[in-house]
């Protein structure tokens, strides 16, 4: 088929995405910059409130912590699944994919049951006589980090398994037999060879945590709000749509910057990829 008629087939999709997504987003951006009077005053007002600063800072902190924890938990697992436990690989992959497809409401609710006031952990600690009264675990930053780690851990494990599958075990053996220390094997072979998976996983987990809504709402509540719960509160409870629009633009910019930053970091670590 000619290139021209192939291009015509793209038109419905381009129209739909432009009309329903790009134009509304562009209008949102315009709303936040009233050119006639002081164009950036909405952003200044937003960022000047300590309440908002705290939430912005918390959102980034929580996302960063979640990403780091996911890397630490996923890396050894993925290594084992891809290189040692090949026989059971498909089972491990199924167990990682399953929660990914399960409703985030269910996955966050599970943690409400576990860390709630009369939840599993509090009951256990009281039964063990470690504490007398239930401790507040739910509606804290800690709860949000746990919930997000649970939500996004598979997104770190799966791409890591994907790249580590391609590492030949012979390669590691020959490095060892040539006298490389296990540290050397790790830092000079495994890490660079898996960096692309680490990059994909980190971007998915970080941006996912930065923008997740269900988990912060159920596990953070009003005490540990993040940007996404703040935008909902402003838009749907307070009807402060100017502020909600400002948060929306800040969220898009932050997500974009983070993706660029992690990409640049990975480039420096491993210029070949």
């Amino acid at each position, binding site marked *: 088929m000619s290139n021209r008629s192939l291009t015509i087939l793209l038109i419905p999709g381009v129209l739909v995405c432009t009309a329903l997504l790009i134009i509304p987003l562009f209008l949102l951006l315009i709303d936040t910059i009233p050119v006639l009077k002081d164009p950036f005053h909405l952003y200044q007002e937003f960022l000047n409130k300590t309440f908002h600063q705290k939430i912005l800072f918390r959102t980034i902190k929580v996302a960063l912590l979640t990403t780091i924890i996911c890397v630490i938990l996923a890396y050894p697992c993925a290594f084992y699944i891809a290189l040692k436990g090949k026989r059971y690989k498909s089972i491990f992959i199924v167990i990682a994919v399953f929660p990914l497809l399960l409703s985030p409401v269910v996955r966050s609710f599970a943690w409400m049951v576990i860390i709630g006031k*009369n939840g599993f952990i509090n009951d256990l600690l009281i039964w063990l006589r470690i504490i007398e009264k239930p401790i507040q675990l739910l509606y804290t930053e800690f709860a949000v980090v746990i919930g997000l780690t649970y939500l996004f851990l598979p997104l770190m494990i799966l791409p890591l398994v994907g790249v580590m599958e391609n590492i030949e075990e012979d390669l590691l053996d020959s490095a060892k037999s040539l006298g490389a220390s296990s540290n050397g094997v790790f830092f000079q072979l495994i890490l660079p060879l898996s960096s692309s998976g680490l990059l994909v996983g980190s971007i998915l987990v970080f941006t996912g945590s930065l923008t997740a809504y269900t988990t912060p709402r159920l596990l953070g509540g009003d005490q540990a709000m993040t940007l996404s719960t703040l935008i909902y509160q402003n838009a749907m409870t307070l009807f402060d749509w100017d502020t909600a629009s400002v948060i929306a633009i800040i969220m898009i910019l932050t997500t974009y910057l983070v993706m660029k930053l992690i990409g640049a970091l990975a480039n420096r670590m491993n210029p070949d990829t």
Partner: protein
Amino acid sequence: MKNNKLLIISLIAVYLFLISPLIIIVLSAFNESEFLAFPPENYSLRWFYRIFESEMFISAFQNSLLLSLFGAVGSLLVGLPAAYSLSRTKSKWRQPALSLFLSPVIIPGVVLGFAVLKHIVIPLEIETWTGLAIGHVLIMLPYVIRVIVSSLSNVPIEIEEAAVSLGSTRMHAFLVVVLPNIQSGILAACLLAFITSLNDVPVTIFLTGPGVTTLPIQMLSYVEYYFDPTVSAISVLLMLLTIIIMFLIEATMGLSFFTKK
């Protein structure tokens, strides 16, 4: 060897972390008592009966199904021609168009939902259902396009050319030669899109209206007011549904899709 043991221990710990919350949910669903005590003392099915007695969860689930059906049809109508073009064209528009189609994945869900509400639903005064359908087509489209493009890349362009050179029209060749070859890809795309739509909260929560809500939104507002095992019971049913879908995805596209982004 010491290293190996450490690896196994960390693997087991991480997988326990992944599985045990789900087991706790299942156990609490069969718990007789009013609140979510753990471990349960008496087992019963009362919370499962409760779901089917309460109109709100049933109608919310019906809405969810209807919405994902709308969304699947809409995103296929738009996505199938686009995916075909993307997999065959060498035009300079290919890359920008692909980025545009995949952008709903990168844009935060709450932002997407809010933007559609503020600049489409409200100014154009459209109905709740239409607003929801717009939001869901947008979030389903990236999955439909990505899966169908990769499925089409396995169909050599030569067999299509052969059909055309033997006198078939382009459309006919697509329908009888290409389409049968990407059936399982289309099914996989629909399954992924379906589960995305069924589970979505951030976009949907801005677009639901009076009397129209979806299952996850109904569950969300329920657990904020009542802390009883009804939601555990629904969760168990959703787990069963998810298992079925997961096996269908494995059969059509393979779960290795998830390790290769």
